[in-house]
């Protein structure tokens, strides 16, 4: 028996515990290629035409592999959240560090290999796509080992780790594309001596990289195991600093906390619990969006002085990204905005917060206000920095001319441009508050189900919808005339459910009439604004009178844009989180 060998036994025991703890997640990940393969098989005829197979096959596979990397993140935080690296509880086991790190790495490499193989051999063949096994598995295994080494080595440098993982992930994806298309042969021409196989050299390089990453992981974890963290003191992003006075370790906070500390701080006392909570929400959640927006914007804009003037074509592309930036960031941050602490792995309310004498109404109100301030601050950064960037380093004249020409042709272009700004601001806020109920519920299973729901809502409809759209494109463009009735019915259902939930929350004393009235007023105000904009901006005269996309349909669409039902769930979710 293999496990009878003394050297293997501890590794086997650790591996078994990892498997028992993670088998459900692994099986869920493995089910994705199986389900997709079955779906592809059902509608393979439609997929085999055009770009369908590439789009529908590779996109879910890419996401599935990405999720596997996230899932295989073998780390644990310490109780105070200062450290998020190799689980320190394992340090006391009577095994070498090599064994400690080898076991999760072997598990992770096996996991990524099995999931890739399932996509390559079970799912994609149904779309007529054949993928090799050997080099991609080696490539993904190398990526996994490097990923794990970075995660462990930078356990105390969370922001630096995020940046490095982002860059590493991009390199991994680009390398995959290069290898898939055989570009490495062109890249390595002249470097590799004649007579040697470029592919073999690449594979050997991957093996060397894996060994290097293993050595790095071993050094890093060994260092952590022996308490060698003091070597890293003073690095940017670290939260440990030696106090000159006491000689004790004092946490100085993460980079984000230091930035927040550098900003002017409130010294006055808070007049009310709602204001105190608003400050808390702003510091812990709200300030993240403007900081992130400013940082990403800086990364986009910073190279401008070195490559000025930037051509009109590039300016147009970058401008689109800059405008989309707060929206994209708000969409991502919004998923955690409702949590008690955005940065905490624990979804539930800490006892300290749960026992503050603060009503649910004030709590949710503080979150909404912090989201509003975050939105306005982010857009202020965008609206101040972007014109400066355009004026100083970009060829904006031709863009301006085109815009003027368009405005002369149709005066609505000017007013549409002006209207776009408040609409974008509204949508940013909407993304931040739309998922409040999820975080406020404090239930891990709800967050997991939502993550799966996002996956399904992105890919399942796409998988089913593309053939449908291909077949029924005309019908979708010219839907039946009863479309407004369908939309009205859907809205009536949504409104009734929201009203029922709000009524229930009111009956249970979870929310006040005033709070319901306030949000209803905000909701009606925003929806009225959107309806007026639709009324003024949409060129109804160009739409065929036989199409269901008539004036009524367009007027009904804004009713679905602002969250109503989900906001009604928020006080109930918070109440359940506070008392179980």
């Amino acid at each position, binding site marked *: 028996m293999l496990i009878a060998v003394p050297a293997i036994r501890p590794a086997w025991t650790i591996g078994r515990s990892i498997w028992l703890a993670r088998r459900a997640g692994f099986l869920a990940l493995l089910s994705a290629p199986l389900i997709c393969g079955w779906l592809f098989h059902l509608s393979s005829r439609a997929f085999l035409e055009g770009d369908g197979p590439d789009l529908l096959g590779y996109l879910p596979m890419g996401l599935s592999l990405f999720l596997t990397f996230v899932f295989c993140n073998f780390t644990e935080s310490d109780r105070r959240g200062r450290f998020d690296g190799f689980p320190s509880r394992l340090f006391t086991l009577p095994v070498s560090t090599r064994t400690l790190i080898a076991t999760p790495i072997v598990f992770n490499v096996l996991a990524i290999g099995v999931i890739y193989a399932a996509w390559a051999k079970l799912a994609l063949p149904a779309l007529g796509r054949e993928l090799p096994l050997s080099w991609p598995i080696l490539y993904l295994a190398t990526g996994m080992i490097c990923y794990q080494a970075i995660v462990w080595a930078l356990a105390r440098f969370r922001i630096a780790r995020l940046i490095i993982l982002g860059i590493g992930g991009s390199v991994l994806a680009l390398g995959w594309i290069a290898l898939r298309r055989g570009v490495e042969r062109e890249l390595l021409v002249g470097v590799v001596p004649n007579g040697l196989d470029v592919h073999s050299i690449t594979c050997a390089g991957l093996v060397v990289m894996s060994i290097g990453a293993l050595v790095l992981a071993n050094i890093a974890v060994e260092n952590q195991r022996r308490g060698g963290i003091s070597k890293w003191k003073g690095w940017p992003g670290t939260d440990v600093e030696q106090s000159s006075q006491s000689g004790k370790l004092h946490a100085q906070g993460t980079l984000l906390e230091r930035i927040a500390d550098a900003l002017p701080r409130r010294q006055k006392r808070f*007049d009310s619990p709602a204001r105190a909570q608003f400050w808390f929400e702003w510091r812990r959640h709200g300030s993240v969006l403007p900081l992130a927006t400013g940082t990403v914007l800086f990364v986009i804009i910073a190279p401008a002085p070195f490559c000025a003037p930037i051509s009109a074509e590039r300016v147009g592309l970058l401008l689109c990204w800059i405008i989309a930036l707060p929206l994209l960031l708000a969409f991502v941050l919004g998923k955690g905005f409702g949590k008690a602490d955005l940065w905490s792995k624990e979804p539930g309310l800490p006892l300290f917060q749960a*026992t503050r*004498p603060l009503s649910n109404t004030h709590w949710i109100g503080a979150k909404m206000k912090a989201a509003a301030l975050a939105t306005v601050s982010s857009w202020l950064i965008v609206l101040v920095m972007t014109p400066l960037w355009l004026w100083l380093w970009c060829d904006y004249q031709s863009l301006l001319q085109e815009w003027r020409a368009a405005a002369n042709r149709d005066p609505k272009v000017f007013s549409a441009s002006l209207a776009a700004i408040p609409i974008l601001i509204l949508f940013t806020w909407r993304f931040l508050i739309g998922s409040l109920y999820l975080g406020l519920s404090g239930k891990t299973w709800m967050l997991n189900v939502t993550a799966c729901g996002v996956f399904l809502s992105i890919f399942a409809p796409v998988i089913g919808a593309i053939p449908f759209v291909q077949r029924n494109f005309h019908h979708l463009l010219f839907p039946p005339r009863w479309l407004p009735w369908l939309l009205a019915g859907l809205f009536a259902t949504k409104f009734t459910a929201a009203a029922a939930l709000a009524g229930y929350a009111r009956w249970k004393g979870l929310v006040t009439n005033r709070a319901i009235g306030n949000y209803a007023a905000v909701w009606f105000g925003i929806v009225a604004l959107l309806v007026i904009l639709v009324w003024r901006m949409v060129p109804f005269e160009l739409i065929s009178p036989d199409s269901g996309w008539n004036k009524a349909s367009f007027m009904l669409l804004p009713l679905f844009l602002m969250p109503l039902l989900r906001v009604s769930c928020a006080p109930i979710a918070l109440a359940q989180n506070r008392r179980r």
Partner: protein
Amino acid sequence: MKFPSPSSAEAVIAVTGLSRRFGSKVALNDVSVFLPRGCVLGLVGENGAGKTTLIKHLLGLLRAESGIVRVFGRDPIADTVEVLGRIGYLSENRDLPAWMRVDELLRYTEGFYPNWDRNYAEQLRQQFALNTSQRVRALSQGQLAKLGLLLALAYRPELLLLDEPSSGLDPLVRRDILEAIIRSVAEEGRTVLFSSHLLDEVERVSDHLAMIHEGRVVFSGPLDQIKQSHRRLIIRFETAQSAPPRLEGALSISGCGREWKVVCGDVNGKIAACAANLGGVVVDDQIPTLDEIFVARAGKELVC
């Protein structure tokens, strides 16, 4: 040996017939506890007995499956804000927001309590030697416990709920914390519910005692009365006993050979008669310590 009835207007805490299950485990089973104003109730019981579950019900963090929970005559679920505004709570977890600095946490907490006493908070801060510019995550366990107690005391709450306040702390920190609690009780006559494993602490602070065992309140009442109602007997037998003697009414029997220690309720006469039947005689009769009562009620002593 009972507290005032639930109808008493002065009962700060009135719990009647409270039951709670977590899956198949019964955490609380028909628990009734009444705490009059100005009393200090020590809540004792082994790990998992249901002490924290009871405290969470008082804070409105758990909904009663059956029974009635009233704090200041109010339902902590329906009137969460009003009830929490009058309670100072210190949890054994000490899960204060790690990212805040001490001064920020003080200012943040102050916002929730109109009665926050800045001078008193500063006095406690100095007494506990807490640095205002330090981050909470950098504090030691002892400093965290002190900061938690400061936050619980600084608004002079009517009711103080202390859930294992000195669990896992060194003797010096325990002394500091206990002194602060005792001073707060002595100077302001505060009502306190004090849950702890450390029975010497409970004995020092509390004037009333309730013991929970497997979700049930085994006994409750004034501390002196509880101690007076238990006896510790030393019984010497003529011949060595190979097994613990069968003494009806004994809560616990420990010892070996000829001499056995028996802890019992107020039934020492009956025990003496039983022992005489078995050839034994009571050679010592004293009031047991709280530790001995706890062990007799909660567990079984080893027989050598």
